[in-house]
C-alpha cells in the first residue's frame, strides 16, 4: 500500500514538472496554482465539524520579481521530495533546508536563508498537489509523548506503551506506517503540557482510569494529531482534551478537533471531530476554588479570545461563547498547574475523576 501511494505522489510531482516545462516551452510565464491558506479561504464544514480549505487559489509566477525566488524554492523543494521518493528514503525538513541551501552563481544570494522559508513551501506543495508531507517522505522533529496499555509495531519492533518507565513513547512525525496491535483503554486523555503529562503519568492516572495519556507539548504535531485520530477511529475511543484556561489552550483543543487554519487542507486526515474539552475552564476556576491561582490575562490573550469568539465553530455552542466571554470579562487565565494550588494530586485524584464522572465536557 505504501508503495502505491509513493507511486501516486511521484506521478503528481512529475506532472507538476511537466506543466512548468510546458509553460516554458510555450514561452508562457511559468506558474503554479496554490490554494490560499488563510482565514479568508477557510470554511467550517458544519456536517463534518471540520475546517476545510475553500477554492480560492493564487498563482505563483516565475517572471514576477515578487514571486521569482519563491517559485524557484518551490521547484527545489518539489525536486528534493522527488529524489527522496526515487531513492526510497526519508529526510527531516531541516535536512531538506540544509540540502537545498547554497549560494546562487555570480551573487552573494542564497537559495534559502532560513528554514522558515522552506517549511511553508512543503505545505504549498501539499495543498496544490493534494498530498501529505508524510507522503513526500519528509519528517519533522518528534513531538508529543504517549503512555497507556497499548502495544504497537514500528519498523518491525514491538513496543508496549505501558512498559516505558517514566519517559513514555515519543511520537514520531510519521505514524501512518505504525501498526496498532492491542489496545486496552476506555478513552484518550490529551494534555496540552508536558508538565501535566508528567504529573498524570507519575500518578498512574492511565492505569487507574484505564486510558491512554498523550502529552502534546504545546500545539500538537501532525503525528500526534494523526495518532489521536487513529486511536479514535480504529478503536472507537472517546477523546478528551485537557488544556489551560486561556485562548491558546482552547485553540489547541480546536486544532485537535477541527483542524487548524493554516493546515485546513489536511483537517479531514488528521483531526478528530468528536474530541471534547474536559478543562480547564474559567467556570472550573470558580467551581473548584482556584481563584487565587489565576494569572492576569495579557492584552494578546484578550485579543485572541475576542478573535475566537468570532470563529464560526465556537459560535455554535453557547457554552463556548460563555467561557470565552468570561476570559474577556474577568481578564484572567489559569494554567492546568493551577490545580496544584489545591494539592499536588488534586488534578489526578479529584479534578479529572470528578469531571469524568460528571461528564462535564465542552463540545
Amino acid at each position, binding site marked *: 500500500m505504501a508503495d502505491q501511494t509513493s507511486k501516486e505522489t511521484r506521478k503528481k510531482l*512529475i506532472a*507538476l*514538472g*511537466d506543466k*512548468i*516545462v510546458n509553460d*516554458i516551452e510555450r*514561452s508562457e*510565464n511559468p506558474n503554479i496554482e496554490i490554494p490560499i*491558506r*488563510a*482565514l*479568508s479561504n477557510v470554511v467550517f464544514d458544519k456536517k463534518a465539524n471540520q475546517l476545510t480549505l475553500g477554492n480560492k487559489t*493564487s*498563482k*505563483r509566477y*516565475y*517572471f*514576477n*520579481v*515578487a*514571486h*521569482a*525566488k519563491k517559485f*524557484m524554492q518551490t*521547484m*527545489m523543494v518539489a*525536486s528534493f521530495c*522527488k529524489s527522496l521518493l526515487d531513492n526510497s528514503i526519508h529526510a527531516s525538513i531541516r535536512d531538506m533546508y540544509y540540502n537545498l541551501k547554497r549560494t*546562487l*552563481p*555570480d*551573487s552573494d*544570494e542564497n*537559495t534559502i536563508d532560513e528554514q522558515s522559508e522552506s*517549511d*511553508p513551501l*512543503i*505545505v504549498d506543495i501539499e495543498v496544490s498537489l493534494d498530498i501529505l*508531507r508524510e507522503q513526500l517522505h519528509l519528517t*519533522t522533529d518528534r*513531538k508529543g509523548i504517549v503512555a497507556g496499555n497499548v502495544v504497537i509495531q514500528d519498523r518491525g519492533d514491538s513496543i508496549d506503551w505501558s512498559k516505558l518507565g517514566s519517559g513514555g513513547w515519543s511520537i514520531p512525525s510519521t505514524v501512518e506506517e505504525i501498526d496498532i496491535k492491542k489496545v486496552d483503554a476506555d478513552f484518550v486523555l490529551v494534555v*496540552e503540557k508536558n508538565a501535566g503529562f508528567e504529573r498524570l503519568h507519575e500518578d498512574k492516572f492511565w492505569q487507574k482510569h484505564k486510558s491512554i495519556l498523550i502529552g502534546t*507539548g*504545546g*500545539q500538537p*504535531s*501532525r503525528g500526534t494529531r494523526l495518532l489521536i485520530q487513529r486511536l479514535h477511529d480504529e478503536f472507537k475511543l472517546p477523546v478528551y482534551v485537557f488544556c489551560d484556561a*486561556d485562548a*491558546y489552550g482552547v*485553540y*489547541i483543543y480546536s486544532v485537535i478537533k477541527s483542524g*487548524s487554519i*493554516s*493546515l485546513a487542507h489536511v483537517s479531514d486526515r488528521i483531526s478528530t471531530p468528536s474530541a471534547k474539552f474536559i478543562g480547564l475552564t474559567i467556570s472550573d476556576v470558580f467551581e473548584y476554588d482556584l481563584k487565587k491561582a489565576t494569572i492576569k490575562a*495579557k492584552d*494578546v490573550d484578550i*485579543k*485572541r479570545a475576542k478573535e475566537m469568539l468570532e470563529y464560526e465553530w465556537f459560535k455554535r455552542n453557547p457554552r463556548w461563547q460563555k467561557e470565552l466571554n468570561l476570559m474577556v470579562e474577568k481578564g484572567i487565565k489559569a*494554567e492546568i498547574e493551577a490545580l496544584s494550588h489545591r494539592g499536588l494530586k488534586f488534578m489526578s485524584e479529584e479534578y479529572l475523576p470528578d469531571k469524568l464522572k460528571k461528564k462535564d465536557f465542552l463540545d
Partner: protein
Amino acid sequence: MPEIKSIKKTAEDFAKEQKEISISEFFEKNKHLLGFDNPTKALLMTVKEACDNSLDACEEAGILPDITVKLKQTGEDKFRVTVQDNGPGIVKEQIPKIFGKLLYGSKFHRLRQSRGQQGIGISAVVLYSQLTTGSPTKVWSRTDEKKKVQYYELFINTEKNEPEIVKEQTLEDGLERGVKIEIDVVGRYRKTQSVDDYLKQTSIANPFAKIVYQSPEGNKTTFPRSFDHLPKPPREMKMHPYGMEFGVLQRFLSKTNSKTLQSFLVNEFSSVGAQTSKEICKTAKLDADAKPPSLDRASIEKLLGAMQKVKIQRPPLDCLSPIGNGELEKSLKKEYPQAEFVAIVSREPEVYRGMPFQIEVAILYGNLGNTDDQIEIIRIANRVPLLYQAGACATIEAVKETDWKRYNLQQPKNSLPTGPMILVIHMSSVWVPFVSESKEAIAPYIEIVKEIQLTLQEAGRKLSSFLSGRRRAGEAQRRIQIFERYAGEVANALHILTGKEPSGIEKKIVGMVKNRDKMKELEIQEQKTSEKEPETEEVKSKATGKAGKKEIEEE
C-alpha cells in the same frame, strides 16, 4: 578706582585734527573690504583682479583671450604673481592711473555688463603689494606689434591717491601685444577654494578663453578654449526709471543737455518714449516743458514717485551677455567628462530695480563625489567665479529654499541637498549687487532669489526625470538579473522532476529574459497581478512568556 583725568577739547582742537582721508588711506586700514582679509584670499584676489581685467579688455577689443598665470613662491609667505594677456594693451599715459590710483576706471559710469565695475580691483592689489612686501608693481604694455613695449615700476601714493612712478622705460621686446604685470604679495597657497578653483571655474564661465596656469609647485595646467568665438558684445544701457534713486535723479537733471523734462526722460532713460514720458509728467503733475535743472526738491520727489507708478516697458535685454546654453554645456562636459547627466537651464531675463539680469543654471550629476556629501555649487557673476562668503549669497539662499526632495535628492532641513552633484549658477547683469566691495556674494534681493529659484526648479525637473529614468532602467536591469540568476536552479529542479535536459530549459528561460518584448508583456502582466501573494494567516499570535512555544504550530 583711579580718577580718570579728562582732557577737554574745544571745537578748534577738533578742527586741527580733522582732515580729509584719502581713499587709499581708507583701504589701507580696511583691507578686508576689498577681500584681502587673509594671505590665502589675498593671493587669490591678486590673480582674480588681474585676470578679470585681462578678460574684460580682450572681450571689449574683440580678441580671443590667451591668458597666462604664473605663481612663484619667493619666500616663506611671499609670492610673485605674473599675469599676461594678449589683449589690446594700455596706452602709455593711462598705465600709471589704472594701476596707481584707486577708483579710476572706465566701467563705473556706464551700465554695461562687465567683470569689473568700480575701478578698484587692480589698484587695490598694487596697494596690498606695496603694503605687504614694499615692492613696486611691474607693468609691461604693448598696444601694437609695431609699437614698443612700455614698462613701468610703480607704487600708489596713499595720501594723495596718485601713482608714484619708480621706473619708466621703453623696451624693444618682451611682449608681443597686451599687458603683463608682475606683483609681489604676501600670501598663502592652497589647493582648494583658491587660485586653482578660480581658474578652472573662470574657464567654465569663459569658454572662449585659453588659460595657462603654472602653480607654485611648477605644475602647468592648460584650460583650452571650447569655443572659438567671442560672445556678442553686450550693449551699454541707460538707466531704467524703475531703478532710480533720488540723488541720482537729481544729478541727472542737473547735468542733462535736454531742454525739456519730457525730452530729458526720453533721452536719459531706457524704455521711455514720448508717450510714456508725457504720462510720467502728467502723473507727477509737472509741466512737460519745464527745464530739467529748474526742478526743486519737491518736484524731483514727485517725478521719482511718478516714475515708479507709471507702467513702463522693461529695459532692453540685449545688454546682457549670458554664457549661453550650448557654450556652458560644452565647457562643463570638457571639465567634467565623467558626469552622467548635464542639464542647462536659462530663463528669459528679468529685472530687479530697473536692472536687467539673467540667471543660468547647470546641473551635473553622477560620478561626482560622495552621495552623502553636500552638493558642490559653483557661483558665477558676470562670468567671474565667486569663491567666498557663500552663506551670504543669493544663490545659496535660493538653493536652500528650493525643495530638492521633489527632485529625488536628499536634503537635510534648512541646508543644501546632498548627492554626487555640481550646480552652476550664473547671474549676468549690467549691475550685480554684491554684498561687499570684495565681490564675493550676490546680495539676496527678493527678485533675484526668486528668479534663481525658478531656474533651479526647472533644472530640478530635468534632473528628476533623469533620475527616475535611471531608476527605471536600474529596476529593469535588476529584474533581468533576478530572472537570470534563478534560472539555473529552476532548470535543475525541473530536470530532477521530469528528466529533461537542464541546459535546454535554462537556455529557453534566459532566451525569454533576453527578449525585450516578452519581458515588457510579462511586466504588464506582473503589474496586473502585483498584489502580494496572500500569505498564510498568522495564526501563530505572538504571545509572550509562558505561552512560549505552544502557539507555534508544527507543520
